[in-house]
């Protein structure tokens, strides 16, 4: 059976093939994306008008918590791992991932982790309701009983991520084709290498923080309880020591994707390849020393406040370099605007807007006004939705013909793009306004002056949701059939993945390619 997949369900359960596992990751994250999206729609439906209409505050809090957890750990991260599984071996000329059996494991524990997390919705006292940041003591002494299941599921997701990261690092370090030096690797591989190191550095910290919670709840320790000599603020420090790198884990691979797509459709090599690599490394390093900017209002000595403010502002330099490089790649190119390019351009614009609001949030005295308002919600959705989601979408459209051998429907792709683009801006742009005007985040009901913008945001959210149905339909149709794709698919794209036939055979690069 060395030449093809097994038949039936066994193929998927026992597979160690990087392409199969990549496919599993991608479909799983797609499903989670819809689940988390439905939760977002419950939130937006409740916030359509002032007053409580659809859900009660307890359930509303469960929805915001689960939406955050599912989108971060279920949709975005597995999608990037899926793309890594599919693309990294093909990009570096390797026959498969370095540790194929572990690869199978790191995927297959995920559905169990999420099943456990989702099952809390049906437990007495309800699902976790303390926000995806689960600050103690709300998540310890005051948590619903389901918190224990939440903790175990976080352990499982963490284990999966760490295994995935180890696999990716081992693959990149050991499996490159002869001649594929580090500085010849595509940026997607580079950004993933750095992301994987970040994952290994901080996922154990997340596991640690939930373990400490578990011990506080069940074994009488008091890491986070002042009564026993602990401190709830310690929780926030440990959490954000994980949490801030985590947001870069969700954006660095996106930088790699955009750096692959822009040159293809601008028909011009990427501007400043090596500065891109250094900028990525700089961002990853800085992400480890800025965590307390999430905690400016917690009461820190002024020296701490200033340090975290300056360090955070500094991140905008390497991030700026990336944006400038992409724009320079487009400058004097010969551009066409297929769906992946549209999503990539929207990524640059909207991610830059999210970056600007991020810079505003970095300014500590101004952050006292922004912190925990809808301005923050607008900021991180501008970074994550166009950042992570749009880049994943762009990647799917870009590589789908290679995966399936069929071209997707371009018109439908464009319809998807414009619906998503308009829906996204309609949803999240007004959030800047209500946040500045004083609306706190995570509230199920709000004062009347916020009513109009919230109504706009809710309409936008449903539009964005509808756009994703178009996406699903387009993907399914392409998998089923359609116009045959050529080997190159696009107009002279760069990279080893375009040298294999479309669809990519089950085994590629069994003999290493020669890299010039």
């Amino acid at each position, binding site marked *: 059976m060395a030449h093809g997949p097994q038949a039936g369900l066994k193929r998927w359960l026992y597979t160690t093939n990087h392409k199969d596992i990549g496919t599993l990751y991608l479909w799983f994250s797609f499903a989670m994306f819809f689940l988390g999206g439905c939760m977002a729609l419950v939130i937006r439906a409740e916030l359509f008008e002032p007053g409580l209409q659809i859900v009660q505050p307890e359930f509303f809090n469960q929805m915001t918590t689960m939406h955050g957890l599912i989108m971060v750990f279920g949709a975005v991260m597995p999608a990037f791992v899926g793309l890594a599984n599919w693309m990294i071996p093909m990009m570096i000329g390797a026959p498969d991932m*370095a*540790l194929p059996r*572990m690869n199978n494991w790191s995927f297959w524990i995920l559905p169990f982790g999420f099943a456990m997390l989702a099952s809390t919705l049906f437990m007495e006292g309800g699902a976790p309701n303390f926000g995806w940041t689960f600050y103690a003591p709300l998540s310890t002494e005051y948590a619903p009983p389901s918190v224990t299941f939440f903790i175990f599921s976080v352990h499982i997701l963490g284990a999966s991520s*760490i295994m995935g*990261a*180890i696999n990716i*690092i*081992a693959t990149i*370090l*050991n499996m490159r084709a002869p001649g594929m030096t580090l500085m010849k690797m595509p940026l997607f591989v580079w950004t993933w290498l750095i992301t994987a190191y970040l994952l*290994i*550095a*901080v*996922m*154990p*910290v997340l*596991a*640690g*923080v939930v*373990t*400490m919670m578990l011990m506080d709840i069940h*074994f*009488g*320790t*008091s*890491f986070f309880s*002042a*009564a*026993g*000599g*602990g*401190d709830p*603020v*310690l929780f926030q*420090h*440990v959490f954000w*020591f994980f949490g801030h790198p985590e947001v870069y884990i969700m954006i660095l691979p996106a930088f790699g994707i955009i750096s692959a797509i822009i040159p293809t459709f601008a028909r011009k090599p990427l501007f400043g390849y090596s500065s891109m690599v250094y900028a990525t490394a700089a961002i990853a390093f800085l992400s480890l020393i800025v965590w307390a900017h999430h905690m400016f209002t917690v*009461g*820190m*000595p002024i*020296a*701490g406040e200033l340090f975290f403010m300056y360090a955070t502002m500094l991140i905008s330099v390497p991030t700026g370099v990336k944006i400038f490089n992409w724009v320079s790649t487009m400058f004097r190119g010969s551009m066409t605007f297929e769906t992946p390019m549209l999503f990539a351009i929207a990524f640059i614009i909207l991610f830059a807007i999210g970056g600007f609001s991020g810079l505003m949030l970095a300014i500590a005295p101004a952050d006292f006004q922004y912190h925990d308002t809808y301005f923050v919600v607008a900021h991180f959705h501008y970074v994550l939705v166009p950042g992570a989601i749009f880049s994943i979408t762009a990647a799917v459209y870009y590589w789908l013909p290679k995966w399936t051998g069929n071209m997707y429907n371009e018109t439908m792709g464009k319809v998807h793009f414009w619906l998503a683009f308009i829906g996204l801006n309609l949803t999240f742009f007004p959030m800047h306004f209500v946040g500045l005007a004083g609306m706190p985040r995570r509230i199920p009901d709000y004062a009347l002056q916020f009513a109009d913008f919230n109504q706009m945001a809710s309409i936008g959210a449903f539009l964005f949701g509808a756009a994703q149905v178009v996406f699903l339909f387009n993907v399914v149709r392409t998998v089923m059939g359609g116009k045959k794709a050529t080997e190159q698919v696009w107009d002279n794209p760069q990279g080893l993945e375009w040298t294999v036939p479309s669809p990519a055979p089950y085994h590629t690069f069994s003999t290493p390619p020669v890299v010039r």
Partner: protein
Amino acid sequence: MRISKNSKVTAKLLALAASMLVFAIFVMPPLYDAFCEITGLNGKTGGRYEAVPAAIDTSRSITVQFVASNNDNMPWKFSPSVMSIEVHPGEIMDTVFLAFNPTKVDMIGQAIPSLVPFKAAQYFHKTECFCFNQQKLKAGEKAELPLRFIVDPDIPKNVKTITLSYTLFDVTERISKNVDKNNTKSAREG
């Protein structure tokens, strides 16, 4: 050959992951506590201070304000005996807090101190404090809880007022469960 290369990388990365877990659980909390004491973060004051005779700086005085509050469901009456006192830096001062257990059961309380401004925390020394120990009060019992402190003469000139707050927690259940022996022992004395 390839397998051994992969195992090596895997072993190294697993070791890194494991050490980060150890770092999070066993290093970060004590590191944070040490950091708090140095910087006065969260107004944490140091543990028991061994009194060193220091010159009293009579040229200035500082108002030390006392605040007491109860944590959730702590039914004791708990209050400072005086709202505030004026002290000269270097002077040893005594005061008491009043506690009364109005319930029908014996209870154990633990007071947690916190001080603002943070920059003054490292200059506020307690030579004796009821917060160093848990306080047991029988049903209906009243107690005067002593506090003796010195404000360090090195305290920055611009500090005119120090507010010392105690929050009283009900730890009866924690202690009776007797599960956190180690933890209460290592609880920050402060």
